[in-house]
């Protein structure tokens, strides 16, 4: 077990290194969420619209970043560096878990940046709740990252397949989670779909937590949804990695 941890640390720190060497790479994947923040938030009615909108945008930037991360692996599968890692004695689960864990770091950086941008415009930060929100989000982005790697491993040399699936899933997940517009007033079928989307619970939890409402039912639901996505991602991801050549 300790050696699995050690191997995971090796993979994790390798993944993290380019991010540390070139922190701007974190900002690139944030361009879209920042656009939504700048161009969409002003359209929302009410004084407290930022309190409602910003937590959703934080989840969105985690969704965008983590769901794309498999493309790095896809590229490394083409250049030969993934193959080189497979020949080392690193344990196969570590090759996946280390990569997935790394998703937490850009997620935290992006959340901090979004909050920092929004506070001057009147966004009120409740630190305790926000920190718990980030713990939940960490579980969610580990799962998303692991699923993205799984997609990369099964796409193998077919970039188009990776991007088609990723792009096809991205916006339905986003819209059905009620990130941009509330779902409550939508038709029944839309609400049913939204209830089936684990991201909905994560978004609801983040909204309550970032507003300081820690002891809400949504917190527990968000925790369960994020843990479920995290676990599912790791299980299928590790299986895919074990079969990788």
């Amino acid at each position, binding site marked *: 077990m300790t050696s699995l941890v050690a191997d995971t640390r090796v993979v994790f720190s390798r993944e993290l*290194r*380019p991010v540390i060497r070139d922190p701007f790479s974190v900002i690139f994947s944030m361009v879209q969420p920042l656009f939504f923040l700048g161009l969409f938030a002003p359209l929302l009615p009410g004084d407290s619209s930022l309190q409602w909108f910003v937590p959703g945008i934080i989840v969105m930037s985690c969704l965008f970043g983590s769901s794309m991360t498999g493309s*790095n692996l896809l590229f490394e599968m083409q250049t*030969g560096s993934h193959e080189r890692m497979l020949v*080392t*004695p690193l344990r196969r689960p570590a090759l996946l878990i280390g990569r997935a864990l790394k998703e937490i770091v850009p997620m935290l950086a992006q959340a901090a940046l979004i909050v920092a941008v929004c506070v001057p415009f009147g966004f009120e930060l409740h630190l305790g709740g926000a920190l718990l929100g980030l713990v939940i989000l960490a579980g969610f982005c580990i799962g998303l990252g692991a699923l993205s790697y799984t997609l990369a491993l099964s796409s193998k040399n077919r970039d188009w397949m990776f991007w088609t699936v990723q792009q096809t899933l991205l916006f339905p997940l986003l819209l059905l989670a009620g990130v941009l517009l509330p779902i409550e007033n939508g038709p029944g079928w839309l609400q049913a779909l939204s209830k089936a989307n684990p991201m909905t619970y994560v978004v609801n939890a983040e909204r309550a937590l970032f507003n300081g409402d820690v002891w809400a039912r949504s917190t527990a639901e968000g925790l369960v949804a994020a843990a479920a996505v995290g676990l599912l991602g790791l299980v299928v991801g590790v299986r895919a990695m074990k079969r990788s*050549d």
Partner: protein
Amino acid sequence: MIETRELTKHFKEVRAVDGVDLSVARGELVALLGPNGAGKSTTLRMLTTLIPPTSGHAEVAGFDVVRQQREVRLRIGYIGQGNGAGHSQRGRDELISQGRAYGMRVPAARARADELIASLGLGEVANRAVSTLSGGQRRRLDIAMGLIHAPELLFLDEPSTGLDPQNRANLQEHIVRLRAEHGTTIVLTTHYLEEADSMAERVVVIDHGRIIADDTPQRLKATHVGDRVILGFASAHEAGEAARTAGGEQRGAEVRITSDDGPRLAARLAGSLAPVSIEVIRPTLDDVFLTLTGRSLREDATTLEPALVEA
């Protein structure tokens, strides 16, 4: 060091590797030579635990490549056909990560990385992003990564493909030096004849997933092709006489004789037959491949050379 029995890999209909029996002793430098698609990479990928064989059996460094993958992985180095270093990484970082992947502690990995950076002449580029390196620099970085844990057995898949002649010569020198200094067992694949000829003491010729010859370059050439001695005479008549005496083939004023030691034969016949000219043509490994398969290994050769086929 390597022991395979009936090693086989099929990809659906393709018999990529078709019953390979190969045994490599400690300290050998073996080249697997064959045209593109012969099954060289697939063989290496099975021996390095990347893909399981369809059937057959292989032991590498004393361990089974299917049941004892970890033991095998700990003992081998592998430099694949692609580039091992991540493009967004820096060379030095990748070397250290690679050392850590083999269980080295950070200070040890760092020291070993510095050592390899110096010996492979990567000092100026080790702190740059890998994506900015030239092909030759990347290949040297690959070699450094393969050597980080000083493996007793090193596999190299087409190490010099895509390099210019100077970089290729450099690389070959490094490989030969590695062998001389550390006694590393080396198995490399190549489709460059000159490379197999000049570097390896043992060449395993592979075609269509099968081993069709396995020996030193000299013996392969002597057994399968032989030297050709061409004696020139003043007239066809003299040539005819000489052909009858020495037992060669007459062509106009020339006599061609095949021998496994051309220079010695030439020296002997020079005295007894008194020809006006002597030429000794020594075969290349391509001639060996041509004799064995009827096809040439050279990329630019599409037709057979009739003279060689006859000889």
